[in-house]
């Protein structure tokens, strides 16, 4: 937390230096949501529940001056859950100062950075730690302290990242569902780096687009965001390896087709390995002049380590349907199934949302886990079929 405080102070001080300058713009916005998560089966563990209620608060603040050349951005996160101890948590997702000039941008503070193009998993995306108590699918990220300098030229953008203040992955408490069968604690964590969590991680990314092609090449050196689960001292504990990861992401956008590729090579985490996601998406736009769009998504997930992989997706396929009514309420739905090609377990996901009035939105989410093999990581969720309803107010 010390690093955080330093960054906050640095960002705020810098901001206050420029604040007096010319006309400034500032604004608060955000959302408050109420969420109900219900599980189909009773839990196998006494600590766990069948129903969870929570309240989520996501405040945002933007302060701009010098016609947007300087920006101070904040985005916070807070959740209160009635039956899930660790999910009741606070985080600063973003608090940074962004300075933009013709060929440079400097972004200093806590940020979220996304790299990649595919939908089923995000191999290349490595800057931010996963907020493991929020979602089982890794889609929610913790804020990462950084200095990011972007050098912007006609031939593309070069991003340099210096990442002090490593964030450990947050782990679900015993009362949570959708968690591995064991409980991990970062107090037991071990590191490759002698500096442990004080290791300053580094990353470099080149990205550009040429016609229909958008692409990025990146390299990361530092504490692995993904811990290796190691046994010893009478239990399991997380170990953060010092890794090198090179990543490539490409998307070709040709007429109604999107062709996608993400590939990584990682070394330093036991054996070196290669993993990739191949994807394509085709959209039928404005079907029969109804305004409705229907997209078909197909992705193949590969991990060279096979069954030894640290993710459940070593030889899996995603087939999905994306529906957008493009109506006044922006009604949308995404239905997807991830099938293990070796028959070790499948997940069916549904996400749907619709605006109510001008400021409310309702989200429905459901997952079914079936045909799992004891040796597949998804087996842990076998009894965790769930549906989740969220009503959010945006201001």
């Amino acid at each position, binding site marked *: 937390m010390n690093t955080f405080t330093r960054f906050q102070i640095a960002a705020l001080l810098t901001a206050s230096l420029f604040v007096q300058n010319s006309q400034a713009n500032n604004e608060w*916005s955000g*959302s408050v949501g109420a969420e109900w998560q219900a599980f189909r089966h009773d839990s196998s563990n006494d600590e766990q529940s069948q129903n969870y209620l929570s309240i989520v608060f996501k405040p*945002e603040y*933007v302060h*701009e001056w010098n016609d*947007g050349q300087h*920006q101070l*951005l904040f985005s916070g996160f807070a959740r209160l859950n009635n039956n899930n101890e660790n999910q009741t948590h606070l985080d600063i997702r973003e608090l940074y100062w*962004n300075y*933009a000039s*013709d*060929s440079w*941008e400097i972004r200093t503070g806590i*940020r*979220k*950075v*996304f790299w990649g*193009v595919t939908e089923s998993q995000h191999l290349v995306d490595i800057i931010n730690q996963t907020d493991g108590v929020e979602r089982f699918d890794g889609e929610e990220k913790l804020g990462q302290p950084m200095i990011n300098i*972007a050098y*912007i030229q006609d031939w593309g*953008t070069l991003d340099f990242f210096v990442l002090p203040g490593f964030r450990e992955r947050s782990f679900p408490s015993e009362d949570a569902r959708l968690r591995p069968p064991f409980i991990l604690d970062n107090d037991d964590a071990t590191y490759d780096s002698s500096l442990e969590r004080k290791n300053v991680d580094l990353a470099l990314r080149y*990205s550009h*687009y040429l*016609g*229909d092609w*958008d692409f990025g090449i990146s390299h990361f050196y530092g504490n692995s965001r993904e811990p290796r689960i190691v046994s010893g001292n009478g239990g399991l504990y997380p170990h953060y390896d010092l890794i090198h990861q090179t990543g490539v992401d490409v*998307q070709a*956008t040709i*007429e*109604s*087709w*999107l062709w996608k590729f993400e590939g990584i090579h990682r070394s330093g985490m036991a054996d070196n390995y290669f993993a990739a996601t191949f994807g394509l998406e085709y*959209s039928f*736009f*404005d079907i029969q*002049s109804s*305004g409705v*769009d229907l997209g078909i998504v197909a992705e193949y997930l590969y991990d060279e380590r096979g069954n030894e992989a640290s993710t459940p997706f070593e030889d899996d396929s995603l087939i999905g349907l994306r529906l957008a009514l*493009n*109506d*006044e*309420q*922006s009604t949308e739905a995404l239905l997807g199934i991830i099938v293990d090609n070796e028959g070790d377990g499948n997940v069916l996901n549904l996400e749907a949302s619709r*605006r109510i009035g*001008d*400021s409310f*939105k309702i989200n429905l989410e459901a997952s079914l886990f079936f045909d799992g093999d004891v040796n597949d990581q998804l087996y842990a969720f076998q009894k965790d079929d769930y549906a989740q309803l969220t009503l*959010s107010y*945006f*201001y």
Partner: protein
Amino acid sequence: MNKTNFALCVLLILPLSGFAQTSEEKGLEIVMEADKRDNGWGDVKTEAVMTLRNAHGESSVRKNRSKILEVKDDGDKSLIIFDTPTDIKGTAFLSHTHALKSDDQWLFLPSLKRVKRVSSSNKSGPFLGSEFAYEDLSSQEVEKYSYNYIKDEAVDGRDAFVIERFPQYKKSGYKRQIVWMDKEYYQPLKIDFYDRKNAALKTLTFHEYKQYLDQYWRPSRMEMKNHQTKKSTTLTWEKYDFRTGLKKRDFDKNSLKRAR
């Protein structure tokens, strides 16, 4: 016919062809004049409010801000930032338009901090659930249509050329459009849209034109009525700031990420 005779014939016909201008030529001539008069505005920042009304008279409002950069010999570049409805606040849309080649488009999703390249094949779909299709709001290049001058006809007391135009780009939702082009402003006063089956679909009217930089006419309000669904959308332009000094760099993926 020897060369001398041929040259003589050409000389004889030339002055006549000026009078015998075809309706296609006249249509194109008017549109090119409109394009010429609207050249050189450089860049503009606007604020717009869209009011959507359904057949029962219920309405909802969408606010957005745009920046547009004029690009010589190509389509314009634009960046739209959505302010309301509040659930899409902070979403931004970057478009590098082209006359006939498909546009390059990116969407910034603020909750994921993700920039997505999106397909620009969706021309005819509704923009934010409104009666405006994407193609109604994109940069209007001369090459996008073929033209046919029909007649002169006044709209609400203003003299106008009536021109029929046919989309030449792929995936348009229209078979044709009829445009009433103001003879003084060289800007449209009214457009009738016909769907792919050639049935009357929508009518767009332009109101309260104002002149900027002593040259460029812009409407303060646009009314789109859908005859088939009875829904309508009012698009009000609250502000036009010309020549604010925007550059190519303000329309790249880095600026899309920090668009607020």
